[in-house]
């Protein structure tokens, strides 16, 4: 298998994730787009590890999965407390720090 096909797949997923982060207005939907981005990075790491016959790629992917789990936990906690204060998770309405 070509290495580029995995890198292109992950580039497509990354771009779709960036599109989702820009376009979505709901906090939870933005978190889902961030998951897409993190997954595309994992595919890249494992593919490079397979190319070099080196384990570091897989170990890095495992660490990224763990950090992503922590990130989702904290992100959802923040979204919940935003919801509790404002009764909405629409990101456009979070303009408290706007000058």
């Amino acid at each position: 298998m070509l290495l580029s096909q995995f890198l292109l797949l992950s580039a497509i997923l990354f771009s779709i994730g960036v599109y989702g982060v820009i376009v979505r207005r709901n906090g939870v939907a933005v978190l889902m787009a961030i998951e897409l981005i993190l997954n595309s990075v994992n595919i890249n790491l494992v593919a490079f590890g397979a190319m070099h016959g080196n384990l570091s790629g897989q170990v890095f992917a495992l660490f990224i999965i763990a950090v992503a789990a922590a990130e989702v936990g904290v992100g959802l906690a923040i979204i919940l407390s935003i919801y509790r204060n404002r009764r909405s998770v629409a990101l456009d309405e979070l303009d408290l720090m706007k000058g």
Partner: protein
Amino acid sequence: MTLLAAANGISLPGTDDPINVSQTVGFALLAALMIWAAIRVVTTRNVVHAAVWLVVVLAGAAAQFILLAAEFVGVTQVMVYIGAVIVLILFGVMLTQAKLGNDPNLSRRNWYGGAVVAVVLFGLLAFATIDTFEDAKLPEDRRMALPAAEVGDGEVPRTESNTGAVSDAVFGAYLLPLEVLGVLLTAALVGAIAVARKD
């Protein structure tokens, strides 16, 4: 002539190897499914549907990991992402009372800017990828090489299973990062409870 490879002296492996057709066809089917599901994740108007499409993408990624002989990463992906993260996201959807039916306000009206950014970004990434790794192929034997210290002359010794090699690496060379990661997870989860609790 690839610009980056020439500048950095990267040697590309397997440029003359034949392409493994059956694996490539399997990859293409999985990739098409993943891309369609990913597009649905960011375009559907129903948050719950988006979460379910995200399951398809994550399962496809797990299958790609197994195709790359990273079976432990694939199983971890299924357990952590599909088992835990998706459930957490669905809880987030339910607890924030997002509209469970179709919600026309889930995306912005003017999505053109985001589409332009995504297309330009993909163009740059694709150009860099194809220009750098034009014909590089993955080795057919995807068992990992043993550490360089144990390599004698002749054939590179390979591990019996990549799962065993991953465990050796995680509890060997990467022991300190693993412990730091454990502390980070604990801190993040305690922080999440502290942020989300009612006071």
